[in-house]
Structure formats: structure tokens, C-alpha cells
């Protein structure tokens, strides 16, 4: 399978995964540092393959909505590390950002919603606009297994199937919704079965295998682009860390996280690329340094921008009405 994937795509996906991982680690360090830009990290290290594998099939003008946990992987959709860090630290020049509130009109990045899953309807609306305006753009909505039970997801699927909208729904099943196991909130084993009742195809993939995510999403995205309607992917992955950094994780059976960490998508993909000679060890080291330097430089750039002031924020609002 890997042999058929163009080399530049293999390399792009690697770079995107490493960037996502390093940003996740950077945010953790920032949180521990007492820096004024810190927040409580909702770590997504170990879940990057889902966003990265899908984005390798998307164009700049396609739409995407991701989960808060892997939002920093949106460099895979074209957002620069500079913009990620400026957004995260409330210095975005295009709008007020915030640690969860990533948005980029230029790259079709749909704002995330704090009421998780409700934003899937927004992504579905973008797919509707793409269709009504006679474009061949597609939309992707990635949400967690827990938000997958929200009525808004079902409403989105009702519309997407009835109107054959160009949207791919993706459950990033990391096995937990805060402290509740997916087994407690679903009676089905295979989460992609949810597609059956809506009459569009569904497939479960190993969400820690970026190549499988890439292959399956490629087929569904092409299908949607050609006007054949929506699909559902259930990407099985694992939340290696707490819902947020510092919570007790009492719900997790002993040894479970250790088992899953053996399936971490990054070392796994790295090994495949080394075995195939797509990358060498020195390439990897070089890239590591390059990305770390870019993060450093981007954070310095972000800090050089003025933070949003409350007066600027009010300026555009209609509060006086």
C-alpha cells in the first residue's frame, strides 16, 4: 500500500505529524512554565494520524472542522505554525483567537464549538454551500466518540444523506469522553455502523495508522467530490493522556494506556518510512530541529504582536444595541 503513495505526500504527512506532536509538547511546556500564554492543555499526542491522514487529501479551498484535542495539527491543512501560535495566544490579526478557537477563512478552517459536536452542523452547512454554489469543494467534520452521541451530529447526517452533501464525518474514537468509556455510551461495537441507518457508507480504520486513514479518506473524499454524497469514518485511536492535563484518570484500567502507547502512530510511521528509505535518520534529526526552531521563532513572532484589548474586542460588537 505504502508503495503507491507519492513520496512527497509521505513526507508531508510525516512533517505534519511531527509538527503536531512537537506543538503538543510545546503547549505542555508552556503550561508548566508559568508563562502568561499558558492554558490547561487537552493533549492529543498519539491521535495526530487522523487529522494528518485526512488533510493529505484536502485542497486549500476544502473545509475542515477538527476536535480541540488535535487542533494544532491544522498545519496539515495549511495553517502556519505562526498563525497557530498567534491564535492560541490571543494575538491573531484576523480575529480574537484563544486556546481552542482556531479559525482560518483562507484555509477553510471552521471555528470549533465549545458545545462539542454542534460545530458539525456548521461544517455540514459549508458542504451545503459548496454544493449550492456548484463547486467541487468538500467538507470534513472530525469529532470525538463522545460528541458523536449529540443530536447535532445526527441532524447533520440527516441533512447530509437526504441532500447528498459533500461531507465526510469522522469519529476520532479515542475511547473516552472525559471519564466515560466509549463502551458505556455506545451499544454497537463498530462505530461506523452509525452510517447504516443514514444510507451512506461507513468504515472503521486504525486511526493510529496514518496510511490507512489516508487511503480510506482518499476514497471517500474523491467520492464526495464527484457528487456521490457523504461517508463516515470511525478512526480507532486512544487518548494517551487525561481529558486535560492534571486530572486523576481514575476511570482508566491499569495497563491500558501502556498497551496503547505501543501503537503510537508516530514511531510506527517513522519506522515504515525508514524501512522504505523515504527518510533517513539524519533527515529525521534535521526535521526535528527545523520544526523546533520554527516553533521557537513563531512564538517569538506571536509575542511581538499586540494582544487583543477589551476595547478592540468591544469595538466591533453591537453590545450597545
Amino acid at each position: 500500500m505504502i508503495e503507491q503513495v507519492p513520496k512527497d505526500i509521505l513526507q508531508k504527512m510525516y512533517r505534519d505529524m511531527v509538527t503536531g506532536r512537537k506543538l503538543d509538547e510545546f503547549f505542555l511546556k508552556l503550561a508548566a512554565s508559568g508563562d502568561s500564554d499558558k492554558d490547561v492543555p487537552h493533549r492529543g499526542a498519539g491521535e495526530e494520524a487522523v487529522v494528518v491522514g485526512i488533510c493529505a487529501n484536502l485542497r486549500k479551498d476544502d473545509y475542515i472542522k477538527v476536535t480541540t484535542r488535535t487542533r494544532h495539527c491544522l498545519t496539515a491543512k495549511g495553517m502556519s505554525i505562526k498563525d497557530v501560535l498567534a491564535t492560541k495566544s490571543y494575538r491573531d490579526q484576523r480575529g480574537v483567537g484563544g486556546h481552542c478557537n482556531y479559525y482560518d477563512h483562507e484555509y477553510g478552517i471552521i471555528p470549533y464549538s465549545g458545545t462539542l459536536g454542534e460545530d458539525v452542523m456548521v461544517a455540514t452547512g459549508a458542504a451545503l454551500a459548496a454544493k449550492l454554489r456548484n463547486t467541487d469543494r468538500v467538507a470534513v467534520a472530525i469529532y470525538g466518540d463522545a460528541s458523536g452521541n449529540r443530536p447535532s451530529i445526527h441532524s447533520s447526517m440527516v441533512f447530509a444523506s437526504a441532500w447528498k452533501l459533500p461531507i465526510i464525518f469522522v469519529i476520532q474514537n479515542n475511547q473516552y469522553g472525559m471519564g466515560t468509556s466509549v463502551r458505556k455510551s455506545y451499544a454497537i461495537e463498530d462505530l461506523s455502523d452509525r452510517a447504516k441507518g443514514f444510507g451512506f457508507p461507513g468504515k472503521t480504520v486504525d486511526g493510529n495508522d496514518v496510511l490507512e486513514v489516508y487511503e480510506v479518506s482518499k476514497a471517500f473524499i474523491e467520492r464526495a467530490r464527484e457528487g456521490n454524497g457523504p461517508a463516515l469514518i470511525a478512526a480507532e485511536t486512544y487518548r494517551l493522556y487525561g481529558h486535560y492535563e492534571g486530572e486523576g484518570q481514575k476511570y482508566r484500567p491499569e495497563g491500558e494506556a501502556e498497551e496503547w502507547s505501543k501503537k503510537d502512530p508516530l514511531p510506527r510511521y517513522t519506522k515504515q518510512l525508514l524501512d522504505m528509505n523515504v527518510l533517513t535518520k539524519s533527515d529525521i534529526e534535521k526535521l526535528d530541529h527545523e520544526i523546533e526552531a520554527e516553533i521557537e521563532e513563531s512564538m517569538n513572532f506571536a509575542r511581538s504582536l499586540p494582544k487583543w484589548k477589551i476595547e478592540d474586542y468591544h469595538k466591533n460588537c453591537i453590545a450597545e444595541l
Partner: protein
Amino acid sequence: MAANQSVTYVEAINQAIKEEMRRDEDIAVWGVDVIGDFEVTTTLGILEEFGEHRIMDTPITEEGIVGLAAGAAFAGLRPIVTLMHASFVPLALDALFLKLGCNYQEWGYAFQLPVVVMTPVSSGIGMGADLALSPEALVVHSPGLKVVMPSTPYDAKGLLKTCIRDDYPVIFMPHLGLYNDNKQEIPADEYTIPLGKADIKRKGADITIVTYSRMVLTALEASNRLSEEGIEAEVIDLRSLVPLDIDMIAASVKKTGRLIIVHEAYKRGGFAGEILFRLIEKAPELIKTLKHDIKRLTAPNISLPHTAYLEKQMIPQVEDIFRTVKEMF
């Protein structure tokens, strides 16, 4: 200058939508049974003129109807979407309150979100709490929503055209009870009415009645009877709740010295409270000089019954306004 035309409220709404759709091809309409095969009449004839890419009957899922509108507007459309009854507002409240009303503000207006949600208040025929609710209090609380509730065909058309041209979300709530009665002469030429400008529907020097939507007609009828008793009421039709024309209310109350606020929504947390507090903030001294305590007439805090004759006894009627105002003299 073309001659005037005589239209009903629903015809005025229909004209506004079609005229705007001719002007701007990014406008698309969706909602339950909007094509007109059922009994929705505000959107009749749009399919025939504009085709199926501009108007769509939706599955019955209100949160989807509004939620998709937010995304479609993000992606370049200017949706007009309908909820069959305004009492369905709670079904779509996340999409209305947060997606449309808050999220774009959170972004400091980094992008426009031109959505009109049109949803008629459907009281008056005994459809009960589930269908007859007047839910304006639920939406005026959202920081980014404009809320418009017209009482006449002329206002409905002019205001709706302004709503459609607004680059940010507007909740347009007509009243089902006004749809087919009260034909009115309106200009055949194009006109618009700005939001945030109330209208004095009847001039008077003795008391100010502040109201909106169908209650304007009730208040006018009561005013005619009061006039026979020598009381001249000034009836202010707010037309839009957000923005609110507090200046006009203050000027009128300063003149009359008496104020009664009338709406058909429930009393507790109802919009009357907001109007009064805005007035206090606007003109704190004025309140102390009034000739009588301020009154409000609303539905009581009891759920509307599924029985027309009981419902009638809960929503302010001509007699209620007449009697309450008389007691203020």
C-alpha cells in the same frame, strides 16, 4: 413613482424575499415545507421563479436548519431559513444563541454571518405551550442577535428587506395571527426600514403604550375605546427589540407621564422588564416624575393551554388594556 398596492402581511413578506433574491443570487431559502406544497405561504412561488438551488424543503430537524445556515453563511451564502413556529426556537437554541449569536463576536467579527431566521409567533388559535410560545426573551439575551417583530404589512416588508441585507444574524419573527387580515396600502416602489427605529402608530398625550407584534393592533383598538372616554394613548410599536429605540420611548413617556408595556410573552424574564430597565438607565430622573406607577400586561407565568378560549384569557386582550389603562387615571 408607481402607484400603491394593497397587500396582506404574508404577501408583503413574500415580496420582500423575492425582491431580495432577485437582487442577490447568494440568497437561498430552506425550512420545513417552504416550497409551498403544504400550508406555509410566506415563501410561495420561489421555487417556480428561482429554481431548486435557491429553495429547499428540509428534513424536520430545527437545529440542523439553523446550524447549517451558520456554516453556509461562513462559506459564502446568505441563507434565509425558517422555523415553522417561533416556539421551535428552543429546538435550535445552540445554533441560534451560540453559533449565530456568539461565535462570530468571539472572533471579533473576523467574518460576516449573514443569516435571517424567520419564525412566526403562532398564538391565538389554541395550539398550546409547545406551539404558541412567543420566545423573544430567549433570543434577545444572546449578545449578537438582532430581533425584529413587525406588526403591519408595510413594516414587515421594509424591515425584512433590511434584515436580509444585514451582514450579521437577524431573527425575524412575524405573527401568524396577522398573516391574512389587515390589508394595507404599501408603495409599489422599493423601500426599506432601518432596524432600531420604533414607530408611533397612534399619537396621544395621556399615556404611552409600548408594545410590538400583534399586540400593536390590540393596543390600537383599546386606544380607540379609551379615546371615547377622553384618554388619548400614544402607541409605540418597537418593530425591532434589538436594536431597541429607547430614545423614542423616553421622549414619549416624558410627554405623557404614564407608561404601560404590553406583550403576549410570559411575564417573568419577559422583554417588558428589559424595556423598563433601559428606560431607567436612559432617563433616571424621568421615572421619579411619572404621574402613575408603570404597569405591564403580559401572559401570566402559566403555560399556555391547548384550548383557544382559555388561551384568550391569558394573552392580553383589548378589554384588558382598556381596563388597566383606565385604572391608571
